[in-house]
């Protein structure tokens, strides 16, 4: 027999957004159940060996892996949070408001009064001939392989994509003694922070903008790649092909929000390229169009861990407040979080995010 557990607030995903949501909701007094499919909390932070930028409030100059530890300790210290690791959420049943998950080889159900979805995002792939050859990875997967499991993916890498993930993983490959033949970027400009780009350039790695991959080569695994140049209309220019001898091709072309649960719950969704794909329409308090269901982090629009943490805090506070819990300064804390988000998204770097967010207000 399957019995349905109850909780006040269920949070799906214990990455930067989910952990922050758990901390703020539980600090306000709510009973929280935090579910994550991994055996340890932290989400993608656990493989980020580099120090963060940004303001002190979002752990600037602390390494991602240490932020994961700090946030997890903070949540563990709260007696009203139940953490369920190795618990994979399988679905949300709209009619009953029940969340189904798999843990300990059992199919289990929980019915929360409020739900915060913080499932993050998954890596995008690319379509090119022989894109199924062994040796072709997502850049995030390579980061996991190296920084979590201590395994280098190969000897010589072509990195496709010069956003922050492509640049940072290239640097970490170099640190691990792996050669990076080139970083290619389809856009005419480097997408990531120039400080990261400068670092890999100084180590002799060419960054080619307006270039893309034409195809991969190899019999049983990657042995090489053909790249070619793009014109100003993003069309490949025949005759510009170059051959690279590599045994790894890393794809770092962005992330897509992992929004299945939001679709299942019937939340209004909108396709916003600036935010990585389909994202939920939401209020300023991160509540979706389904009352009681909140979002935080990359699933609400692909951004950075720093804004994910603040969004989590905001969603946690709002969910707790809607249940009648309120720190005396709840309004002040909410305002403060909104101010921090604004400052994280200000300036030219946040332009794209601001443009995306302007389309999803409820």
């Amino acid at each position, binding site marked *: *027999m*399957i019995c349905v557990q109850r909780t006040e607030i269920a949070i799906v995903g214990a990455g930067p957004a989910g952990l922050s949501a758990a901390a703020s909701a539980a600090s306000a007094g709510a009973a929280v159940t935090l579910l994550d499919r991994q055996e340890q909390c932290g989400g993608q932070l656990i493989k980020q060996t580099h120090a963060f930028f940004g303001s002190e409030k979002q752990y600037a100059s602390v390494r991602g892996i240490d932020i994961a530890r700090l946030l997890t300790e903070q949540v563990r210290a709260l007696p009203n949070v139940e953490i369920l690791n190795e618990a*994979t*959420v*399988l*679905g*949300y*049943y709209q009619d009953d408001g029940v969340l*189904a998950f*798999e843990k300990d*080889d*059992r*199919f289990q159900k929980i019915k929360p009064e409020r739900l915060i979805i913080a499932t993050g995002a*998954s890596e*995008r*792939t*690319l*379509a*090119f*001939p*022989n*894109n*199924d050859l062994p040796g072709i990875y997502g850049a995030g997967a390579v980061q996991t392989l190296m920084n979590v499991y201590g395994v280098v993916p190969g000897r010589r890498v072509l990195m496709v994509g010069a956003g922050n993930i492509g640049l940072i993983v290239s640097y970490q490959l170099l640190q691990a003694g792996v050669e990076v033949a080139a970083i290619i970027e389809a856009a005419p400009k480097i997408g990531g922070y120039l400080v990261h780009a400068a670092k890999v350039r100084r180590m002799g790695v060419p960054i080619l903008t307006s270039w893309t991959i034409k*195809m991969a080569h*190899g*019999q*049983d695994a990657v042995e090489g790649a053909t790249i070619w140049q793009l014109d100003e209309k993003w069309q490949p220019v025949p005759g510009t092909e170059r051959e690279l001898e590599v045994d790894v091709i890393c794809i770092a072309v962005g992330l*897509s929000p*992992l929004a*299945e*649960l939001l*679709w*299942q719950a019937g939340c209004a*969704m*909108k*396709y916003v*390229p600036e935010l990585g*794909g*389909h994202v939920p329409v939401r209020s300023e308090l991160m509540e979706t169009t389904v009352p009681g269901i909140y979002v935080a982090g990359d699933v609400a629009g692909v951004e950075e861990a720093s804004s994910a943490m603040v969004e989590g805090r905001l969603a946690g506070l709002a969910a707790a407040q809607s249940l009648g819990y309120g720190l005396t300064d709840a309004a002040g804390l909410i305002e403060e979080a909104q101010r921090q988000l604004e400052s994280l998204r200000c300036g030219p770097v946040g332009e794209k995010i601001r443009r995306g967010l302007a389309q999803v207000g409820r």
Partner: protein
Amino acid sequence: MSNQMSNRMSNQTIICRCEDVTLEEIQNLIAEGLTTIDEIKRLSRCGMGPCQGRNCRPLLMNELARATGQDVREMKMPAFRPPTKPIKLGILLGQAGREENCQERADRGEGS
């Protein structure tokens, strides 16, 4: 093995790696007049494998947009149903398969 070799010679582009659906197959279906993700999914199994379309859906949407002129923003999405990932029938039933799972866990414990 020989099958793999010929694959290499043909330089195929895979759209759905769970179900081994190629770009060529998708293009043929579009040429036959299919215009939605759902129709293509039902005929080719694109997006019906273990990852439930997480990897291939954006690629399929791009190809549909390119070939039919549809706006990705307006494209009708398929239904998203639980479970979000494959689950053993034994776990769903709550009984069968428990022994094997314990064994698997023991194996994992030894490995780490």
